[in-house]
């Protein structure tokens, strides 16, 4: 049942309904959604709403309506505009639109939705960086083409990144390919956590190539560290 026009006509209703059922069955869902009276405090507090066509109020409202078409539409579009800062939790009804988005995103990723792949494409190198160095962003990644939203000064900084780097405390080792030094044990533990909690499976759903590379790299690291693989 929906009040919205069907914007994804090529996807059968049952398929959308199944995904939304998966969202509503999530154990966190009940505490993220009470009722919405359209006060708009979540939108007023939302940084993303200032820059994108995005409204946490619409997320809460669609969820309260259990509107399959609308929620599917949002799962493919709106949810990727959220920065997950949870400013929206100042809701007087106790709603957590950002939390609903967390669940919608996870279901989108678990089910390999094309929108999830597109939205997360840029994060492949971040994930790879974490697994290979233990830090998610390094100074040499700060290129104007990768971060256009960082403003006009990004080029000046990236051109002189080695000089800037030397001005920072020695814990950074003054390198530009890592943010700081991370112990290999930490990287191994992070990988094992990702495996145990399903993060690796999620990566597999959105980027099969990256998943393969990570497994290859980590298999060697684990072997060398004496883990049975």
């Amino acid at each position, binding site marked *: 049942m929906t*009040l919205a026009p069907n914007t994804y006509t090529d996807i059968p209703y049952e398929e959308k309904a199944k995904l939304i059922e998966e969202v509503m069955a999530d154990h966190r869902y009940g505490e993220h959604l009470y*009722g919405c*009276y*359209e006060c708009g405090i979540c939108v007023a507090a939302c940084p993303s709403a200032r820059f994108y066509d995005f409204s946490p109020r619409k997320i809460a409202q669609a969820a309260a309506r259990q509107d399959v078409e*609308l929620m599917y539409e949002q799962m493919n579009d709106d949810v990727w505009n959220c920065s997950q800062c949870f400013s929206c939790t100042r809701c007087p*009804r106790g709603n957590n639109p950002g939390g609903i988005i967390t669940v919608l995103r996870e279901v989108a990723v678990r089910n390999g939705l094309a929108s999830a792949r597109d939205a997360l494409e840029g994060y492949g190198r971040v994930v790879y960086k974490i697994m290979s160095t233990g830090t998610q962003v390094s100074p040499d990644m700060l290129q104007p083409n990768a971060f256009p939203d960082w403003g006009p000064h990004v080029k000046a900084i990236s051109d002189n990144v080695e000089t800037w780097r030397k001005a920072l405390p020695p814990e950074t080792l003054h390198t530009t390919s890592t943010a700081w030094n991370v112990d290999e044990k930490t990287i191994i533990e992070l990988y094992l956590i990702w495996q145990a909690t399903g993060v690796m499976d999620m990566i597999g759903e959105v980027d099969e190539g990256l998943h393969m590379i990570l497994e290859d790299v980590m298999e060697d690291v684990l072997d060398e560290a004496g883990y049975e693989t």
Partner: protein
Amino acid sequence: MAKDVLIVGGGPAGLHAARNIADIGGNAILVEQRDVLGGTPDEARYAALTPHLESAQDALDEMRAAVIDRPEIDLRLGSTVLESSGKAGDFKVSVAKNGGEAEQLDVGSVILTTGFQHFDPGRETQMYGYYENPDVITLVDAEKMLSKHEFVRPSNGEKPERVAFIQCVGSRDRRLGNEYCSKVCCGIASKEAIEIRKLLPDTKVYIFYIDMRMYGYWENQLYWPAQEEHNVIYVRGIVTEILKRGDRLLMKGEDTTMGRPMEVEMDVIVLSVGMEPSAGTREMARVFDIEKNKYGFIHTPGEPMDPVSTSVPGVYVAGAAAGPKDIEDSIGMASAAAMKALAMVRSAG
């Protein structure tokens, strides 16, 4: 001098005023045009009272029992007040059993509890097709079904899959002349929506509104539970038109949340009709020559500190004869009016 207080109208306010007067040692004459007591809640077969959903008939039975067979209360059922003369402390009113001869009564003061009538959605505009589509009903029609513990599509007796309430029908509308909020419809629609969801758990129930007005504790007695426990769906935006499509109703409106027009099919549409002055209220304003406000309800010039005195000394009003009221308002006003009416009789005596 006359010792009796005349009460016109045997609904909740009239019943409560009569009981109060008797309880504090006065005498009341209660005139009711129907042959039974209980007023609009009885006549319209209200199922459950807002906000606690207890049985309306049980509540009325308790109120009726408190006035029947009491020596201090002279019950005149099936009767109407025809004319009045005199002044505070000394009114002469003629009361007739319907179709019978008029009797002259001496009363010291008067309480009007003649109530309201539900807005007739086909009165001036056929916008929602109330008289054309059997599946377009009012809160009152829904209440009648719910009092029998059922809710069906009137056109075919089948279970509806989708039900929509439209708020503010006949209220807050300059074109109709009813600029006021009828105050109780948001609560009653939410209450009925909860009842429908309890009866028919697979039925989707929508409420389309301008702004929900559930003041005070109604907020979490009705509004929040309707949303949070019973999944009633509230959508901000009012419907402009209802058309027939196949055997369903096509509703056109704006989904203001999503900022786009909306066309959606429903099985039953409930119009949340507001309050207008009843014929009895208009007639008593004439009989006692009291001022009405611009909407035809009885004017209460002493508001806010005195909500029950009218423009004529010795004539008081309680309940929805003075404008949209819920039952709590009506009961409170009835006690206030009883006190003033009895004080008037005693000071005159």
